[in-house]
């Protein structure tokens, strides 16, 4: 691998060509990465020419270079948002100090853990989605899936860069381990629960990119505030790509709803069975998918009371969403935050120290952002004259982490007993039958401009291209 033309092969703004130690580390890691991509990346995709966006610089004009690329040849680059020499830590105990350009010894273990946890989600989602290409509802969607996949791959590169550049030998070992864990593997699973779930069909993929990639957005936003400047700059640039993933989710569900609403109008019926027989996904099933992905994703923010969260904040490692736009003292000592817990069979609110509740603060920011998008989905229904609306389940619904773990709560927010839960679970969460039905609709459509019957075409194409553009070419 010594013949890599740095800069051309690996677009970067970190002076890779001038950093021999980093080159050696990446030269070791890169073949393993490609081997992992071939084994666990999108299935049967290596020979396809895909119309992809490649970032070649951090300038606005460099973010979006569109061309046909074979995915194993994708130029996974390393980009940090431009450095602000005057940047200072703006929260926690060390607020006001210059931002760190190297890892402070006392925060080394925590920073490594934060980076590894973030990095682990990137290859995990590629693994979860690896079979979806075989059932894409159109070339447009197939291309969007692959764009998400290569960008998750680039995010892995970004985290591996930090591990290699700033964490020496342990960093290299952690980078290698990121390629060894496997989503859903019993012996060596991915670190976070939601990243070991399967993404079996395209409705699940759209829900995943809407909700779970939005968790990614909020985590990246919190890390983009970090006092460790290279982490802040790396994650800030990653956010530009994360936005595309949420677009795929939001527009994918909106187009599914559009088609469902059209079918309901044609049938003059809202009977789920009739909708299914007409080849669209009924609203009740979409609602159950939403309930599942929403509840699994809000678990990703961690326990509602967490001393780790307090430590990360006070140490200046991980801030809040839009930390710089908040007008409190950015230390939070003496402040409180209200969390929800179950007491005596009822949900009750309790004030806890804000510092310990920062996971909950971030979760609530996420919830506000998610709810706004669901409002836009409902406008699709409204425009099509459908009276039904999608709703967000209560945040205590179906939780596995934190003080609400294991408490049986209905989507409406009532604590219920085990028997009631069992009775209604099939109305609240996707059933095996739902998944089998959705799977039965999944068939690959490869004719340019054609779309599977369960989803409407998008309003605009990618990069101003027409809808019937050959977004993927089969060699």
């Amino acid at each position: 691998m010594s013949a890599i033309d740095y800069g051309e092969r690996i677009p970067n703004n970190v002076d890779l060509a001038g950093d021999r130690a980093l080159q050696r580390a990446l030269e070791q890691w890169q073949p393993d990465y490609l081997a992992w991509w071939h084994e666990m990346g999108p299935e049967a995709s290596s020979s396809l020419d895909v119309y992809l966006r490649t970032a070649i610089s951090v300038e606005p004009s460099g973010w979006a270079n569109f061309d046909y690329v074979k995915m194993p040849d994708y130029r996974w680059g390393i980009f940090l948002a431009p450095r602000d020499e005057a940047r200072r830590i703006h929260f926690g105990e060390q607020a006001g100090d210059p931002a760190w350009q190297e890892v402070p010894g006392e925060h080394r273990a925590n920073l490594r853990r934060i980076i590894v946890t973030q990095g682990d989600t990137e290859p995990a989602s590629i693994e979860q989605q690896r079979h979806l290409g075989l059932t894409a509802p159109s070339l447009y969607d197939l291309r969007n899936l692959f764009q998400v996949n290569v960008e998750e791959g680039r995010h892995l590169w970004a985290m591996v860069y930090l591990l290699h550049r700033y964490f020496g030998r342990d960093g290299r070992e952690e980078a290698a381990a990121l390629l060894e864990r496997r989503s859903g593997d019993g012996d060596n699973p991915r670190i976070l629960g939601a990243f070991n779930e399967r993404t079996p069909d395209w409705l699940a993929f759209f829900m995943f990119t809407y909700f779970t990639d939005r968790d990614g957005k909020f985590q990246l936003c919190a890390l983009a505030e970090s006092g460790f400047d290279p982490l802040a700059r790396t994650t800030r640039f990653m956010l530009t790509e994360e936005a595309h993933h949420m677009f795929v989710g939001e527009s994918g569900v909106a187009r599914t709803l559009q088609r469902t609403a059209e079918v309901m109008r044609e049938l003059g019926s809202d009977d789920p069975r009739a909708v299914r027989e007409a080849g669209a996904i009924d609203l009740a099933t979409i609602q159950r998918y939403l309930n599942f992905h929403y509840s699994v994703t809000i678990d990703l923010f961690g326990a509602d009371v967490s001393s780790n969260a307090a430590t990360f904040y006070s140490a200046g490692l991980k801030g809040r969403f839009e930390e710089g736009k908040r007008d409190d003292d950015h230390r939070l000592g003496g402040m409180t935050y209200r969390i929800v817990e179950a007491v005596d069979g009822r949900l009750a609110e309790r004030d806890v120290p804000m510092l310990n509740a920062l996971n909950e603060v971030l979760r609530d920011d996420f919830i506000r952002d998610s709810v706004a998008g669901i409002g836009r989905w409902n406008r699709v229904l409204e425009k099509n004259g459908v009276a039904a609306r999608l709703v967000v389940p209560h945040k205590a619904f179906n939780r596995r982490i934190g003080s609400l773990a294991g408490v049986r709560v209905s989507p409406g927010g009532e604590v219920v007993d085990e028997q009631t839960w069992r009775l209604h679970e099939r109305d609240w969460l996707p059933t095996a039958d739902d998944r089998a039905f959705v799977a039965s609709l999944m068939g690959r459509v490869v004719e340019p401009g054609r779309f599977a019957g369960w989803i409407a075409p998008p309003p605009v194409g990618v990069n101003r291209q027409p809808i019937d553009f050959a977004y993927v070419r089969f060699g």
Partner: protein
Amino acid sequence: MEAAVIVTADATVEAQKQHLIDPEICIRCNTCEETCPSDAITHDARNYVVDAAKCNACMACIGPCPTGAIDNWRIVARGAAHGVDAQLGWDVLPPDDAPATAPAVAATAGAVPAVAREPRGPGATVPPASAAHPQVNLHSPRAPARAIVAGNFRITAADAASDTRHIVLDFGATPFPVLEGQSIGIVPPGVDADGRAHVARRYSVSSPRDGERAGYNNVAITVKRVTADHGGRAAHGHCSNYLCDLAKGDAVDVIGPFGDTFLMPDDPAANLVMICTGTGSAPMRAMTERRRRLAHGEGAGRLMLFFGARSAAELPYFGPLTRLPRTFIDVNLAFSRTPGEPKRYVQDRMRERAVDLAALLADPRTHVYVCGLAGMEEGVLAALADAVRAAGRDWDEAWDSLRASGRLHFETY
């Protein structure tokens, strides 16, 4: 915001092209707001919107938008742009055919620059193959570079109506590497009427990469004192007046450099066709000066310049330009306000030279640069197309080739 003219049933109204975001397609990801160099994009819990008073249609937000929602434009009468508050309440965009004050858009609406409607924009999005690698964004608004004014010279005639200046900034020990075609941002000191820091203004550099004074760390810009708006009404350009009034030794805060596509080829055999008006001459002067200093003889590429101004007295760099040997650069001037003579625009001069122009455009080593007011784009493109077609070649093919190989660049404002 760009100027244009729309015609109503009974009167000619000055119009502007307003940039809007489609609330039905936007996913509220904040990428545009993060990208906008003019802070023109803002949001509430419902919508992301563009403030028409701040947007200068620099297009920096277009590529990064993941949805395509960003790329919407409406022609509205000047002064009747959709306000921020109105946009925040929208669920859908207003119809394309109903400007805010509802004047009918007549045939001359074609005068609106085509930049936003072209499938890929009129110019290339990649630099020339042999361009040097540019440095960008070295100095941010939060940490600008400090430069000292080394000179401030009027370059339009003393009796000309317009006051255009050649300002030389010295960066001392602060690194500020620029290439011909790049721009820098000037941050005027103080705050505006609302108590906010002034927005930086961008200026193309008019000196070559080795400095206005070769070997020193200095950069020249070309600044026209703004005393009237596009409609001719009195207007005080805060940044341009600040710059034009600077004295030697004054300190200036500078950000950038910016731009990674409007760059000159390093191949000495490459031909340059340069088309500009007014202070759009800045990058052309930089490229011309770069070539002049290299002083290549045999085998050097040709330079052809089309340069428009209202009169010779208002033509920046008129004196030095006319002293350059014809063998070095083929200069074609167009004056639109010479008393007793018909108005002539750069595209008229291009049509007169169509045969020579077509011969140059047939050469794959020819690079075309256009800089000036946005209104010139369409006329220039039409003149280029006619020249190529008159030579019996397909313009769409030639245009695609120019764009794909980074040989056609626009910098308009």
